[in-house]
């Protein structure tokens, strides 16, 4: 976390919490500026008339990927210090679907519900209560879910490892996927744009 400065000992563990706080505020700020404090904007994604969520998120992925790749190549960032979550295929598919359903039903994902709540939206606040209740239920029922939760373990897997491809090639493929996605998103938005009489 907090690469590259942490690696060089520019600050300790306590200061890194402050840095994390500042980064969190920045994250929330940009989510808000992208319009993601509004459930209408977020759910437009699923009606295919405004794919801003897709575009913003994929832009962030490509920016972070290129930044990490080049800073590591230059020796400024130590990529092996970046913590990876282990890949647990089946529980992560199930979790992704569950999060997607929650997103469609509630109009937010966890991060954007925080943004909505701090900008004074009641639905965001209610959503956070739901998230908290869900975390509690999950935590209390964890002994029952533990077997599934730990199933399909592939370890700390990256795309270059999974597909046996050179790292740089994966970077290029993800960039191409993003650019293709942006063009496709533009086409989809024009195709599904609400007609004037619908408002």
């Amino acid at each position, binding site marked *: 976390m907090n690469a590259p400065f942490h690696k060089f000992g520019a600050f300790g563990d306590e200061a890194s919490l402050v840095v994390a706080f500042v980064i969190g505020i920045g994250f929330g700020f940009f989510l808000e500026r992208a319009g993601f404090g509004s459930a209408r904007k977020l759910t437009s994604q699923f009606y295919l008339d405004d794919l801003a969520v897709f575009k913003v998120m994929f832009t962030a992925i*490509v920016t972070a990927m*290129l930044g*990490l*790749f*080049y800073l*590591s*190549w230059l*020796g400024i960032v*130590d*990529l*092996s*210090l970046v*913590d990876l979550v282990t890949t647990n295929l089946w529980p992560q598919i199930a979790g992704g679907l569950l999060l997607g359903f929650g997103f469609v039903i509630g109009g937010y994902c966890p991060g954007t519900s925080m943004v909505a709540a701090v900008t004074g939206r009641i639905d965001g606040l209610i959503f956070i209560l739901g998230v908290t209740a869900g975390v509690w239920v999950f935590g209390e029922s964890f002994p029952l879910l533990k077997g599934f939760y730990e199933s399909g373990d592939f*370890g*700390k897997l990256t795309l270059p490892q999974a597909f046996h491809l*050179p*790292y*740089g*090639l994966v*970077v*290029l493929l*993800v*960039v*191409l996927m*993003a*650019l293709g996605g*942006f063009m496709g998103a533009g086409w989809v938005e024009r195709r599904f744009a609400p007609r004037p009489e619908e408002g």
Partner: protein
Amino acid sequence: MPTAAKRRFSTNQILGFAALGLGVLALAGNPYQGHSVHVDAKELATIVGTEVDHVTPKELADWIIRGATDYRLIDLRRPEEYAQYHIPTAEEVPIARLPDYPLGRNEKIVLYSEGGIHSAQAWFLLKAQRFAGAYILLGGLEGWNDEVLYPTPPLHPSPQEAAAFERTMQVSRFFGGAPRALTDSTARAANPTLALTPAPPVTRVPAPPVSPVARQKKAKKEGC
């Protein structure tokens, strides 16, 4: 945006081309640094001199009992030795496999071997590859046997020492060891011949009724 309309490409297109260019250039690079290492001799010497790179067997025993998960315990001995006995939670990583073993540079890694030589060498390998959290189990498996599994009671224990040893005995039993009871040491103290004979380092550990496996471990002295 009037200015954007005059430009040949929109900002989005320029950013897209930039990303594409960086993606193509990425084909030539590799973000990982491989197995080559960089050594800051002064820094390493300071760490060794201040002995901050040690974990004592008792500390490790506490972590295991607490169920701590913030460390990786690496057994550097041969697979057959690992199969015979290893400290609970240890991972089997013969030293030759260490450079390719998936460890995180942000993890707390405790190394142990039979004595201390292999773990010290492995520590140096990890430190040179900038694994910040590499530690050596003080005394290796021998230290673990001496301090945790088969602790020797103090000869003339003060009440505090006796209480402390009571706790040590509990830890020992937790790990299936066999501590010698305090009464043994008082009995030994009463026997002048025993008390006067300084035990050589190797036999410092009493030979308690141990399982055959553990006794074999203790007898094994060669290598590290």
